[in-house]
């Protein structure tokens, strides 16, 4: 449904996104994660045909967004980051107007249905200027799904919502994801984990990781990565760790500290590590679970990205 190949966007000297390649299939919900300024919005704007790319191709529902822009745009529902609304319209008028522009069949019924989906039926007669942030977000979402698009692109749809609204919106996205392809951006990992089949992590305009939430979590979140520091020379210990086939990854942080990736599965392997260190005559200074937050995951991914680039 969404196929992106070698997508780059340069603003003069600055490279906003660099050589992105990814895809999203029908019925998939793909989370697009990254810190602010990573290139999420730029990517989405290119995907929706709002901006051209410097190089690369984008295919939406079988149509090239650059060459068959109008056709491709018919299949996209898009909620931009700043939720564009006409303040002077009532909720139903706004949806009716956009539905008209998109030639939605049985417009009246569809507008009713969509307002029901986002829980705005009782505010249909309210002027948009009088709505709260959460309601505006929901009207924006209603607009995006109005024409039953095959591809739904949502730029930070949960920003500014309270926890209950957030849960409702995520539930709605999950529901919508059954019939269409959803790409949504966020910088909150837990949100993405809750509903996504796949996560794309982007930083500095590059994809630094792409995996299912479970795999990424196992790769990166707390409890399963431990930091080990020992006294003295640790080269021998590195060899010892390398000999452990059940470790998922070993990284030397400094001369005598290591980060070990332990496999998931519930069994706490820390005692085994401690025993190994002590039995081999090293003095254990620290053995600590690393509780990674998203920021650290980014940093870590970028670091490994840079290391990979250096080799």
């Amino acid at each position, binding site marked *: 449904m969404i196929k992106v190949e070698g997508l780059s966007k340069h603003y003069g000297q600055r490279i906003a996104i660099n050589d992105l390649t990814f895809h999203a299939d029908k019925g998939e919900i793909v989370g697009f994660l990254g810190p602010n300024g990573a290139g999420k919005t730029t990517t989405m*704007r290119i995907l*929706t*045909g*709002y*901006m*051209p790319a410097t190089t690369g191709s984008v295919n939406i529902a079988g149509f090239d967004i650059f060459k068959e822009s*109008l056709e491709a*745009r*018919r299949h*996209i529902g*898009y909620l*931009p980051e*700043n*939720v*564009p*609304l*006409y*303040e*002077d319209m009532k909720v139903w008028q706004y949806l009716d*107007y*956009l539905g*008209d*522009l*998109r*030639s939605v069949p049985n417009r009246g019924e569809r507008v009713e249905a969509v307002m029901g989906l986002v829980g705005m039926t009782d505010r249909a007669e309210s002027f948009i200027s009088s709505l709260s942030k959460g309601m505006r977000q929901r009207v924006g979402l209603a*607009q995006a799904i109005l024409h039953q698009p095959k591809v739904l692109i949502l730029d930070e749809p949960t920003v500014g919502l309270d926890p209950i609204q957030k849960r409702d919106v995520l539930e709605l996205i999950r529901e919508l994801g059954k019939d269409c392809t959803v790409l949504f951006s966020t910088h909150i990992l837990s949100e993405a984990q809750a509903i996504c089949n796949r996560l794309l992590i982007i930083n500095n305009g590059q994809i630094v990781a792409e995996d299912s939430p479970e795999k990424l979590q196992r790769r990166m979140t707390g409890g399963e990565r431990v930091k080990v520091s020992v006294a003295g020379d640790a080269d021998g210990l590195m060899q010892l760790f390398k000999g452990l086939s059940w470790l998922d990854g070993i990284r030397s942080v400094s001369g005598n500290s290591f980060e070990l990736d332990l496999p998931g599965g519930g069994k706490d392997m820390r005692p085994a590590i401690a025993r190994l260190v002590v039995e081999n005559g090293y003095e254990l200074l620290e053995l600590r679970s690393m509780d990674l937050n998203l920021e650290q995951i980014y940093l870590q991914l970028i670091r490994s990205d840079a290391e990979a680039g250096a080799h």
Partner: protein
Amino acid sequence: MRNMWIIARREYGHYFISPIAYAVAFLLFLIVGIIFGLIKTQAPNAPADLQGELGSAMTIFLFMTPALTMRLLADEQRSGTMELLLTGPIRAWEIVVGKWLGAWLFTWTLLLFLAFVYGSVLTAYGNPDYGVLTTSFIGLGMVLGALLALGIIGSAVTSNLVGAMIIGLTINLFLWMFGFAMEAVAGWFSTIDWVQKFSQYMNFTSHLENFQSGVFASIDFAFYVSIIAVSLYLTTRLVESRRWR
């Protein structure tokens, strides 16, 4: 094409809830009313026409059309809804022409109101030439179409409303003055035929005067239509260029 009408309808409707549009209408009706009263009472035997009244209406529009056009595109840009329109299945020209058309239809509403009121008064107290009255209003409508199309350029250049209005005003006044400048140029080169013709063609007000004297010539139409076409084309390119920046 369909989208163009949908946008035009929305913009047309929007003027009826816009205080600026009411202010423009108020000023127009007030000034035309005063001038009508003055002319008809000062010269009771004047012909039953609206020459002077509609000439002054044109001057009012010269200053007021930028107020009607300033928000058309600038507001969409400012509120981000332009992103919504341009990522929908809508072409840039449909947005631009639809907006212009909405504004033009609104000003036609004002003109028809004037035509009805003063047409009735002239009929009641005199014996007007309906042909001349009709061409006068059509001429003014064409001038308005051109002024609105010029104003919308300003609205595409900036997302700032005041900026959009000032740019529109500058373009309008420049074009108006340009007509006078061309008259001067024509005076200097009075022997060269094509300069004469060119200066006559480029005069913004002389074409309206033809309409007002009951002349219905294709060249006068062509002048205003070409201004409309060039302005709307330019505006469309400006809107498209926003996304390529």
